């Protein structure tokens, strides 16, 4: 049967194309990142070699040593940046979560006049480009004397994250049936107790993932941080990356080492919450 052979051949070709396509796509996704990791272990001479060295001949921890030791290459104070990033990201995440929980709960549970307009209005504040916002904030912060402070950065990042945490948490609370809280109230809870004893524990995983999303945003943010931080007081790691550049040169190896330090926590956290994250986004979005 000619037709059957043709069909079988076509199916095989499709399978092969599918496999090759997937392989290529995954390689393109992974390679740039892996390249960074690899280069963080290679000596600068080898990175810059011409003709290129494809198979690494020597791997060492020099860049990490330089980075943590604060020696050579202008002595970038990585640990201070790491600490600043950590404090600012964590604090702003906790506050954004609390504010977002209140707001998300309101959207999920109450009839609000003009609900979708208010929702889009909140989202729009997030859409304001960082550069455009940083100009007036820079002036305002200058007047208030909170430029280059943890407090100033935390405030900005809370505002940056609140719209999105509201969106996500709204989605998660909607997945918690309203009857659960009602049942709790009939069982003798106050509204407050019903929230903390029933609705919050049920939505907890989702809320955690909203928190991680907020954390990643703060952790990776550059446009605002680059203008509102000046010194060791509050400079975060994305801004710190710039320390590896000077007018005409770039310390690739050192930068790659810092990059790895930045990615690691993000990697771990994202891995932990990926499932909930998708659920929250799609639920909140689809079941408007």
């Amino acid at each position, binding site marked *: 049967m000619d037709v059957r052979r043709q069909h079988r051949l076509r199916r095989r070709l499709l399978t092969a194309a599918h496999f090759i396509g997937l392989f290529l796509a995954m390689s393109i996704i992974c390679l740039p990142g892996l390249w960074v990791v690899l280069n963080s272990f290679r000596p600068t001479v080898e990175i810059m070699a011409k003709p290129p060295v494809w198979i690494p001949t020597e791997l060492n921890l020099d860049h990490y040593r330089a980075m943590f030791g604060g020696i050579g290459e202008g002595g970038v104070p990585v640990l201070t940046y790491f600490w600043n990033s950590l404090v600012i990201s964590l604090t702003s995440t906790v506050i954004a979560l609390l504010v977002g929980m209140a707001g998300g709960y309101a959207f999920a549970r109450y009839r609000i006049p003009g609900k979708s307009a208010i929702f889009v209005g909140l989202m729009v504040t997030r859409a304001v480009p960082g550069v455009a916002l940083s100009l007036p904030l820079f002036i305002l912060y200058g007047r208030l004397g909170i430029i280059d402070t943890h407090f100033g950065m935390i405030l900005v990042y809370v505002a940056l994250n609140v719209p999105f945490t509201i969106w996500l948490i709204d989605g998660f609370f909607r997945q918690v*049936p309203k*009857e*659960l809280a*009602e*049942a*709790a*109230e*009939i*069982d*003798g*809870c*106050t*509204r407050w*107790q019903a929230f903390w*004893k*029933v609705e919050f*524990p*049920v939505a907890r995983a989702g809320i955690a993932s909203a928190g991680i999303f907020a954390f990643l945003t703060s952790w990776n943010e550059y446009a605002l941080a680059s203008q509102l931080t000046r010194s060791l007081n509050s400079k975060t790691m994305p801004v710190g990356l710039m320390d590896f550049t000077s007018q005409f040169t770039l310390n690739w190896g050192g930068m790659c080492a810092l990059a790895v330090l930045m990615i690691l926590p993000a990697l771990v956290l994202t891995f932990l919450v990926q499932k909930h994250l998708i659920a929250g986004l799609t639920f909140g979005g689809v079941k408007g």
Partner: protein
Amino acid sequence: MAQVVLQDVVKNYGALPVVHAINLDIAHGEFVVLVGPSGCGKSTTLRMIAGLEEISGGRVRIGDRVVNDLPPRDRNISMVFQNYALYPHMTVRENLGFSLYIAKRPKAEIERAVDQAAEILSLTPLLDRKPGQLSGGQRQRVAMGRAIVRHPDVFLFDEPLSNLDAKLRTQMRVEIKRLHQKVGTTIIYVTHDQIEAMTLADRIVIMRDGHIVQIGTPLEVFERPVNAFVATFIGSPPMNLLPATVRSGGLRLADGTVIPLPPGLTAREGQAVQFGVRADNIMPEGHSMPPTAHMALVEMPVTLTEPLGTETLLFATLAGTEVQAKMLNPRPVRTGEVLRFGIALDKCHLFDADTGASLRV
């Protein structure tokens, strides 16, 4: 002691009234079922009694307290929800004991109450599972267990069986009735299923469009429906309704057929009416029709048959309207066969064609 009294209770959503000034007296220990088509206000009424919905007007009393402004937790009620609303993060044991735990009762007392409730509903082997690991019927029982643990004044059931399959529903219906006999607490039960209403209730409250249409025992509402809506809503298959006009002591159907006026009815000459008769009261000749004094005979062609075993449901046409009749001790019937049917006139109803009100005195 907990009777429940509703006085002129109103519910508005904004400007939209959904419950119109209803009055209802429920005695202590009574099993009352609110029934009606969806959107009739029955669930809203239940939720107002529970305190989950604000009362727009009138008063609700539970026992001797007016509870209008009390939050649900202070009304000493418990409720079984349509989707059970079990706390998914707690085990069955924790679910059952939650209300007592919130009330800060001593541990030993909670344990005893939980064990007792689990015993009654045969949940003991499931106590350490989470709701996610239970079947539909088991979840339903946990929901009921959670309700009985705290010995409330009133049980509220909001369509508790509608998520179960047909077989389980019948089984749980019996369990609910048995539970009521055992604990004797007042029960208010909402359903859209008239069979559940008939089988469970001491008294049925039939609602429509936010009004109470009729209150009565199951037999009362079945035998003496106050209007055409109740007549067609209660009973299965629904009552046949045929448009007719009253003409010189008889009923003239659309095609000119005249049927004698059933006894005990008041109708003006020339009044447009609907003639109502249940399938149980139309039977083909020779098939166990009990002899009565008032019998009308009609010939009808059979269009469809539904054999049910002990009886067959016959679909036939009378004066251009499809009617359903019952054949006991059935024999095979061909489609198109013309049979002679007897109509038991003293079991028939007459409703005003405009208002739908019953014309029985």
